């Protein structure tokens, strides 16, 4: 048996080497870099330099506040919307189901740059269709890119548009795994469709909802594309700057890899902490 294992490991060696060099080492290395002052040549070991700065950096807290705000508002709204979409997709009354499924999923496969450009056009102050629609129902135009609140809303709308369908497909798969006869039994028990949804579908979907929430939390903690491309690098005036964007700015604009690494580890730590809290809150009662 030991021989057979050795042979297997020999076959796995190329993969394990690549994994170690390009996966494990960067993780360790970036962690070590976070303890170094990287604005000096050569870099020097200074444990408090980046981590200490983090605690007192208004830009970090601004990015953290923005990221958490998006997380707290956008993730629940998106999952609720995804749930509605999944229920619609699961309805036996729906015609052309395949078409809807494709349409809901399509945003995920659309190029980020292309979709960001389209969003910028759609929300443009003078030419955008969104403002035209608002005008047509008697509402004033909104300057989506120059004011912080509308800009944040725009980021949330864009992220929701992009990922709601993806989550809906996951939730749909979960829904379809609930046996039909459970609903039939509830129907015979005179339980209305709405009550069936709240008392059967939702509780049975809990593990899938948790899965979607965890994926979304991780995704939002890393949010970069939308504030970078749609609101032009976290504009207006850092109003939509996220941790991902701060990391990019520090690492690849200021070449301050030590601080960027500290930000990266903070993001990962927060994602893990929030996910653990989430899992604890949604745990199965014994």
């Amino acid at each position, binding site marked *: 048996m030991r021989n057979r294992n050795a042979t297997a490991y020999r076959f796995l060696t190329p993969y394990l080497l690549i994994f170690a060099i390009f996966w494990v080492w960067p993780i360790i290395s970036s962690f070590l870099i976070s303890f170094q002052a990287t604005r000096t040549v050569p870099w020097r070991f200074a444990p408090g330099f980046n981590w200490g700065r983090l605690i007192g950096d208004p830009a970090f807290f601004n990015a953290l506040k923005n990221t958490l705000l998006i997380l707290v508002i956008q993730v629940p709204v998106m999952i609720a919307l995804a749930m509605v979409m999944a229920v619609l997709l699961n309805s036996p009354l729906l015609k052309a189901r395949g078409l809807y499924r494709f349409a809901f999923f399509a945003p995920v496969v659309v190029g980020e740059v292309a979709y960001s450009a389209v969003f910028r056009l759609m929300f443009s102050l003078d030419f955008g269709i969104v403002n035209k629609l608002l005008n047509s129902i008697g509402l004033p135009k909104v300057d989506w890119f120059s004011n912080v609140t509308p800009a944040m809303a725009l980021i949330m709308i864009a992220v929701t548009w992009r990922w709601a369908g993806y989550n809906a497909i996951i939730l749909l798969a979960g829904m379809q795994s609930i*046996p039909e*006869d*459970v609903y*039939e*039994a*509830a*129907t*015979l*028990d*005179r*339980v*209305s469709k709405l*009550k069936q949804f709240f*008392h*059967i579908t939702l*509780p*049975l979907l*809990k593990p899938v909802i948790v899965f979607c929430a965890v994926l979304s939390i991780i995704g939002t903690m890393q949010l970069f594309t939308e504030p970078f491309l749609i609101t032009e690098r976290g504009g207006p005036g850092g109003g939509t700057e996220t941790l991902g964007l701060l990391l990019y700015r520090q690492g690849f604009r200021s070449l301050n890899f030590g601080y960027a690494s500290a930000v990266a580890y903070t993001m990962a730590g927060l994602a893990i902490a929030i996910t653990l809290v989430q899992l604890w809150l949604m745990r199965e009662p014994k």
Partner: protein
Amino acid sequence: MATVTLINVAKRFGAFEVVHGADIDIADGEFVVFVGPSGCGKSTLLRMIAGLEDISGGEIAIGGKVVNDVEPADRGIAMVFQSYALYPHMSVEQNLSFGLRMTGNPKADTDRRVKRAAEILRISELMDRRPRKLSGGQRQRVAIGRAIVREPQVFLFDEPLSNLDAELRVQMRVEISRLHKELGATMIYVTHDQTEAMTLADRIVVLRGGHVEQIGRPLDLYENPDNIFVAGFVGSPKMNFIKAHIVGRDARGVVVELAGEKKTRIRQPLTDAAPEPGRKVIVGVRPEHFGDAGEGDADLAVAIDVVEHLGGTSFLYARTANGEDVVIQRDAAKVPDTPAVTVSIRKSYLFDEKGLRLR
């Protein structure tokens, strides 16, 4: 409690007809079993009574009231599903009370009904457990309990025992029988297992290919089948069918000769018009209707291939000189030592070429 009447009930999926005009009358408090092989339409028929399937034609009445367009919940029925269909995230107590709680039934009444169902089914000590912590038999009891708390006019059972092992199936069969006696409710039970049908039913409805083949009391179906399908389906091991032809007839009946067995002639009294000599027929003999040589109407020489010993009884798997396979039931003490043996046919049934019974 209530009667259930099906008049010319049909079910079509597109052009495909799965139930062809079923007419069934079920009396108040009766235990009726729909039995037949897979795909015979028995579950579809039950689901139509429940209202879980629309009916394509005909009429269904429960308690004298036509329910074709009545919602399932308003038909006064409760159903026990093959898969139990328990709510996995709820405790046994919550499973039992869910329907009543959701419809705003007074709590005291809900508690009373749940307690009574739990006592009837002896599951009071399981009330806090989730379904996944229960054995198959316990889950089945909870599923039945959920039906009991509804206090329905009619209980519907859709193959409720097919997921249980053989021993538990026998045990639950007895419990369902006891339950019927205790509640006195009308029960309709679907199964593909003829033993379940024979042991539970007041009356059996035998279905094949969406047609009702015969309706009758278990022993009537056993003793007096209308056709070769019912004859073969009811009884275990199934009836032996041996090719034969008519060699003579008179006013009282016909004389039949088994194919390839010049010496084996059976006289069959017939009240219907007897077929002409030369016509091919099928003789049906139940394994338990073979006797010792000289004991019955005619003797038949067979060669034994395999003997199955079940204790007091044995089954001989044998072959006639014409190559027809037959199963013979014998007392264990009377199993012959030699492969070649002559048995007698003590009782037989006659079927025409289409499989209809000649009486």
